[in-house]
């Protein structure tokens, strides 16, 4: 009987192989469902997913950069610049033209970041931080420091408010992003190269991998995810905002870290991104539902970020328990 149970548990483990943060997410969901009124309702679940979707899309890009051993701060202002460019372009070139221009701006910033980091071997920290400030200044200059309203139209609000088969478009975008990230990381050549370069760039170089190109493509891919998020975000606020999402880079880094991606590079999976994003989204949602004052909300968010990272760090983490409680296949 026990042998059968162990074998079944082993099979389940081998099939799903969930990150430790998965269990944190489950525990947090159970906690909130029991303690927070109206948390575990389908309406609220959709709300959580809708809010989480933008963070999720950008976090997918951040994950690639983190796997490469880098870090990306410029997301925060590149979405703002994209929203302003979109709104400025829409009157002349239509909604599609506007979104395309916004996305192009984000990609251009990604190209700049990638080129500076890969070609000149600059610390990603410095490059993307400088880019964050420079682009924020550019966005504010273009907009004159004030938000610019977009001409409202059905097409403009579709990326944020539309539905396909009853599912909100942002949620579909988030799902597609995580799916793409999973496929690219697990099955594509460039995905495997990102792990190699992130784990040991010198070894990668010596084994004939074009490290510079690999890093460049990583930052470009990250900015592609960010471009998608910028379109949804612009559509949601319906205007060009010079300070659209200043905390986006920090939230995405926190999401990846909570999911269990080490900032040292070389490791990280799509499922970890998803779990980290869900933890942050549930927490944000719960503090709002509980109607805490802003001060307590911030205290609680800070504490949960630190707490969930601590929980995974501690040697007796749930993930370790999960693995060690199931004997290895074949044994010794």
């Amino acid at each position, binding site marked *: 009987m026990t042998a059968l149970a162990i074998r079944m548990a082993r099979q389940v483990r081998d099939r799903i192989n969930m990150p430790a943060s998965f269990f944190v997410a489950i525990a947090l969901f159970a906690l909130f469902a029991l303690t927070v009124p109206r948390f575990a309702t389908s309406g609220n679940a959709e709300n959580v997913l809708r809010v989480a979707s933008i963070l999720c899309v950008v976090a997918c890009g951040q994950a690639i950069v983190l796997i490469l051993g880098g870090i990306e701060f410029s997301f925060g202002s590149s979405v703002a610049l994209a929203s302003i460019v979109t709104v400025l372009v829409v009157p002349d070139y239509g909604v599609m033209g506007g979104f395309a221009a916004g996305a192009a701006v984000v990609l251009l910033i990604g190209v700049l970041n990638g080129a500076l980091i890969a070609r000149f071997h600059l610390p990603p920290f410095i490059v993307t931080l400088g880019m964050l400030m420079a682009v924020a200044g550019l966005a504010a200059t273009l907009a004159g420091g004030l938000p610019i309203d977009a001409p409202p139209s059905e097409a403009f609000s579709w990326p944020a408010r539309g539905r396909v088969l009853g599912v909100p478009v942002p949620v579909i975008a988030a799902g597609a992003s995580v799916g793409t990230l999973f496929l690219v990381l697990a099955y594509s050549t460039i995905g495997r190269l990102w792990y190699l370069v992130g784990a040991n760039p010198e070894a990668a170089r010596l084994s004939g991998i074009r490290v510079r190109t690999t890093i460049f493509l990583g930052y470009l891919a990250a900015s592609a995810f960010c471009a998608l998020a910028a379109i949804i975000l612009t559509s949601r606020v319906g205007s060009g905002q010079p300070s659209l999402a200043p905390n986006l880079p920090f939230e995405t880094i926190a999401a990846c870290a909570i999911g269990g991606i080490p900032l040292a590079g070389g490791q990280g999976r799509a499922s970890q991104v998803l779990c980290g994003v869900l933890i942050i989204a549930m927490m944000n949602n719960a503090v709002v539902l509980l109607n805490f004052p802003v001060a307590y909300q*911030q205290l609680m968010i800070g504490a949960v970020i630190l707490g969930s990272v601590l929980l995974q760090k501690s040697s007796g983490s749930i993930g370790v328990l999960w693995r060690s409680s199931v004997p290895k296949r074949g044994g010794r």
Partner: protein
Amino acid sequence: MTSRVFIPHLGGRFLVAPLCLAMAVVFFGGAAPEFLSLGNLQNIATQMWLLALLSIGQMFAIASRGFDISVGATAALASTAAALGANAFGLPGLLAGPIAGLAVGTLNGALVGVAGIQPIVATLGTLIAVRGIALLLTDDGQVVPLVDAAAAARMSFNPVLGLPLAYWAAILLVCLAALILNRSVIGRRIVMLGSNPEAVRLVGIGYARTQIRAYQLCSLYAGFAGVLLTLRAGTGLPTEGAGMELQAIAAAVIGGTALSGGVARVVPVVLGAAFIQALLTGLNLQGVSPFVAQIAVGLVIIGSGLLEYAIRHFFPVEHRSWT
């Protein structure tokens, strides 16, 4: 014998900040003569110390191979605590600012050194939580007016020997930082931790303790910056300091602090802060909007990275033969 002033294998790393500052002075002085007026230079020389204190703190964290993005929030909390303390206990109560800073630093250091969380995640968590605490202390972000605002104004605006007292105190703290970094055991340990964490473990120096000290120093200086903020404004400012952490990191890096840890010097960092302040003031005098000034600061940060690349490229570490 290697000179203590110029370390050849580190190349011109520490020359970047003085050169940038000189370039800024020449450029803005040429473009607008009033930039070089005594009043304006005095203005820069007083404005810069807030950023200088934050950058010095940041330097300790970066020297230990970490960094601290919570310094802006810590300064705001310290500013609030100092104002509350001064209102309760008179001027000695201002010390509540540095004490609050020290508490935040202890938490940061423990999270990084004991729990092993990456610095950016640890200090991001405290950044958010500390902002929450500052709001909590002040009834959702109301400023805390000093009861004895006249005394604060005397300390921060009445010159004694050319500079107001508060700025002399800041200069004293900067000198103290140089002593701590270069002459004290803990300073050398922090630098050692940054240049080779594994060695620190192997020779039996308390790894976690050293890490905690680095973050304590960082937040302590942020706490002093908060007191300066309170004295200057005459109120505790619980929501101030957003974006200051980025400028502090920029000043530290322009000042030659290596992000890979283990290389730090106080005077260049202060000059780096002076450069950023001169840049902001100079652009302001040119009638440039603050947004464009923000672009300039961003480009300067990237430029400082490029300069570091050039230094590495033209003075590789291997070429030590001419020392």
